């Protein structure tokens, strides 16, 4: 701040040279003495404060805040803090003090009403933008429709209204509703009549919204009032949630009568918010529908949970080539014999190809085998029939598989193993010796006729027969990278599994292969263990069908 040094002649000189300009300055300026009496005012000041004349106390001519500012400025002198601000009628003024001579203070008054308004508008706009950004990211976070409705209601009650009700399109005769009044959001479905709320029926049909002022707040039905909402409804907005072609629902916003009613700008903003909520809700609904369909179709393609059958342990484990998928071209199944004296048929195979297409073919093979179960005693015959089915199907893919018929008699578990072009089953004996089953056969789905040789193997307690797909042996990785897991490592790993329960064998082999692969690409992997238990199984002890937990 430049201080005009205090001798009177200098002041006179200054006033004479700048006085005319000062009087005509486009901003109001007042010179006030230390006692708070006006010394001089310029033309703008006189216009702004009509009572301001030389000799009048400032407090009588100007708003209180300026008079108080003057007292402080006199007291503080040079140390005076920044400008003072306040209202004057419809305007907002900002007054800057500069010290004059003899303890006088020169006030420069700026009208910043427009800046004030612009700042308020900017702040509001920033808040709205911030809210919309937050709303978008929270709305898109969940692909669950109920959760999405919940978030929309939460956001609406935080920013737009005292209470909100989201009405989703009816499923059947009932409408899902989410209601909130600031507390926890409640979900329910109810048989409601949308025409009870003016504008709701139209909103659910995708018609333009009915203006808020047309809606009589007292006419709201009971169901449209959330539990925690107190006091009479003052104003209501009903806005559609635009969806993918069809409305995703409608949002009812309520304000208590002690709050300001919705103005036009707020109604528009509610629509902007509703557009985002509608888009998120539609995406969630689409995802939920699609994933329900996928789950239903996928059910039969997923690997089954294996359990213990007639005194023999079966365990399997599966990993699709893609971590995001659950199915692929490998498969296994266990078809229990009708009684303890009947053979159980286990099968493990590999369809050429990966992903969903291959999985669809595994599904066909599995259901064909299911239908051919009565013939399961004759592997050669079974394979021949399966081959015929595959040759006649529109699929051009082929498959390899292993059939294992299993029968436990006393402490010996008899196995009949037939490979149709598939990696040979391995048997680990009690002493850790690993043998290959001596079976051979042609793959399925290529040649008009298939031939096979069945191997007969007996397991004593604690011994395991391992069926696996080439995803195990051809897995590439290891500590040095790009090395195949290979037969030798599989045999070494299996040798350590002598005497282990089937689940433990499968888990051990699968874990070693997974660790070998690390984060490399890999094929589908399927492993199944058929194990003669070391002791009588738990189920035989307490009479419960324990099985492997079904998680």
């Amino acid at each position, binding site marked *: 701040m430049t201080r005009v040094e205090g001798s009177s002649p200098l002041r006179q000189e200054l006033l004479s040279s700048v006085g005319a300009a000062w009087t005509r300055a486009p901003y109001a300026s007042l010179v006030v003495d230390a006692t708070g009496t006006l010394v001089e005012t310029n033309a703008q000041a006189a216009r702004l404060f009509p009572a301001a004349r030389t000799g009048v106390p400032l407090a009588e001519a100007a708003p209180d805040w300026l008079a108080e500012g003057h007292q402080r400025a006199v007291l503080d002198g040079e140390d005076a803090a920044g400008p003072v601000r306040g209202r004057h009628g419809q305007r907002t003024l900002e007054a800057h003090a500069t010290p004059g001579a003899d303890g006088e203070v020169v006030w420069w008054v700026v009208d910043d009403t427009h800046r004030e308004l612009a700042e308020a508008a900017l702040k509001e706009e920033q808040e709205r933008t911030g809210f919309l950004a*937050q709303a978008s*990211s*929270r709305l*898109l*976070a*969940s*692909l*669950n429709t*109920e*959760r999405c409705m919940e*978030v929309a209601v939460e956001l609406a009650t935080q920013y737009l209204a005292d209470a909100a009700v989201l009405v989703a399109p009816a499923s059947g005769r009932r409408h899902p509703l989410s209601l909130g009044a600031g507390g926890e959001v409640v979900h329910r479905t109810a048989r409601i009549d949308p025409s009870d709320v003016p504008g709701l029926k139209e909103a659910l049909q995708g018609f333009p919204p009915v203006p808020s002022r047309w809606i009589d707040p007292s006419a709201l039905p009971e169901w449209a009032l959330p539990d925690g909402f107190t006091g009479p409804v003052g104003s209501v907005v009903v806005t559609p949630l635009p969806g993918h072609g069809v409305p995703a629902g409608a949002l009812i916003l309520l304000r208590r009568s002690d709050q300001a009613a919705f103005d036009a700008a707020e109604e528009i903003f509610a629509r902007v918010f509703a557009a985002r909520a509608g888009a998120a809700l539609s995406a969630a609904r689409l*995802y*939920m529908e699609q*994933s329900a369909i996928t789950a239903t179709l996928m059910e039969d393609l997923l690997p089954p949970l294996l359990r213990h059958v007639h005194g023999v342990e079966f365990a399997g484990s599966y990993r699709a080539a893609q*971590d*995001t998928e*659950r199915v692929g071209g490998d498969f296994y199944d266990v078809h229990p014999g009708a009684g303890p004296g009947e053979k159980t048929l286990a099968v493990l195979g590999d369809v050429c190809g990966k992903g969903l297409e291959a999985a669809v073919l595994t599904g066909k093979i599995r259901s064909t085998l299911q239908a051919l179960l009565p013939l399961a005693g004759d592997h050669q015959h079974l394979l021949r029939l399966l081959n015929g089915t595959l040759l006649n199907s529109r699929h051009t893919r082929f498959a390899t598989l292993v059939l294992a018929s299993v029968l436990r008699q006393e402490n010996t578990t008899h196995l009949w193993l037939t490979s149709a072009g598939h990696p040979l089953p391995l048997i680990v004996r009690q002493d850790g010796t690993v043998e290959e089953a001596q079976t051979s056969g042609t793959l399925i789905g290529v040649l008009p006729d298939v031939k096979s040789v069945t191997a007969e193997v007996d397991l004593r307690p604690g011994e395991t027969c391992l069926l696996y797909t080439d995803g195990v042996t051809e897995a590439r990785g*290891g*500590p*040095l*990278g790009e090395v195949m897991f290979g037969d030798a490592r599989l045999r*070494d790993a299996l040798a*350590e*599994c*002598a*005497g*282990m*329960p089937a*689940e*433990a*064998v499968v*888990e*051990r082999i699968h*874990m070693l292969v*997974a*660790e070998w692969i690390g984060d490399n690409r890999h094929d589908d992997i399927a492993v199944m263990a058929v194990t003669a*238990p*070391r*002791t*009588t*199984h*738990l189920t035989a*002890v*307490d009479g*419960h*069908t*324990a*099985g*492997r*937990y079904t*998680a």
Partner: protein
Amino acid sequence: MTDMTTAQEDGTLARAREELWQAVCARDEDAAARAVFAALDDGADPEAVLLDVIAYTQREVGRAWAENRFSVAQEHSATAIHERIIAAMAHRVPAPATAAPTATVTVACVDGEWHALPARLLAEVLRLRGHRVDFLGAQVPTPHLIAHLHATVPAAVALSSSLPLRLPAAHSAITAVQAIGIPVVAGGAAFGVDGRYARLLGADAWAPDARSAADLLERGLPRPAGGAVRQSVDDLPHLADQEYTLVTRSRRQLVRNTLAGLEERLPAMSSYSEAQRERTAEDLMHIVEFLGCSLYTDDSSLFTGFLDWTADILEAREVPARVLDPALVILQEELKDFPRTLGLLDQGRDTLRRRGTRPSVPGPGAPA
């Protein structure tokens, strides 16, 4: 069930522990089941049977493996027996009928985590306390977990990990779950005895054991707001130095170079069989992986703790711990441009140097 005094119950549980341990040593599933069901028949609290008998014995099994008293097959068999008994218990002890539907909790292991038993025990404890539980099992790929959560929207996810090496995977699972507005309670040895890594990775809560996890979940956790997925550098700004990325990405090359360096410097290695060479490469891979894990968390104790634990394992198998030092030296030469990594390797060498002849202690889990 009869009412028991605390002393009676303690006696019953102690007897069951002893019998279960004997049965597991003999790999006798029947005897194991008898031990557990006898305790239940005597009126022992099922939760106590799960945690103070089965979980206790499982810890003993891990210790026995680390001290070379159990083979791999024995360890896996014991785990399988425990899992079967837990499954059979689930049939025997019905979940309590609750009037009001309780919140659903999803229990899952981090991707790549094979130790499912701790998570399984928590799932059973929650079930016994009347919760609805979705148990997703071992090594759940995060995309599967997230798809499941979109469909079910549980009140919370309990995420289990035993191996510290899974912490980066745990981190991406935690942030992905929170981004859809579901709170995560982390548990298992991987998160540290005091839960420091759970906090580091921004989990909503941490529990040292199944009981406290169940208590926590009973009290309920607030939902995170959800929205954009937090990125790893948001939580761990030190990752910006790229050392974790570069070391982890080139880990196979590092192992190859270190192996070649060892062969050059240690004449004894020329007589190694191909299998022995591969074993050494595997050991080196674990060292590099734990190094990466320490870089990720910026916590040297993960690396030094692993070296200490490895030294214990080696010494239990009568191999001197000093065999690890030359590998660390070569890694220092290979990674000379990475200051944070060099610091870790220095601390690792220090740890090995300072090892006396103290008794071995079981440390954090390692691939079994």
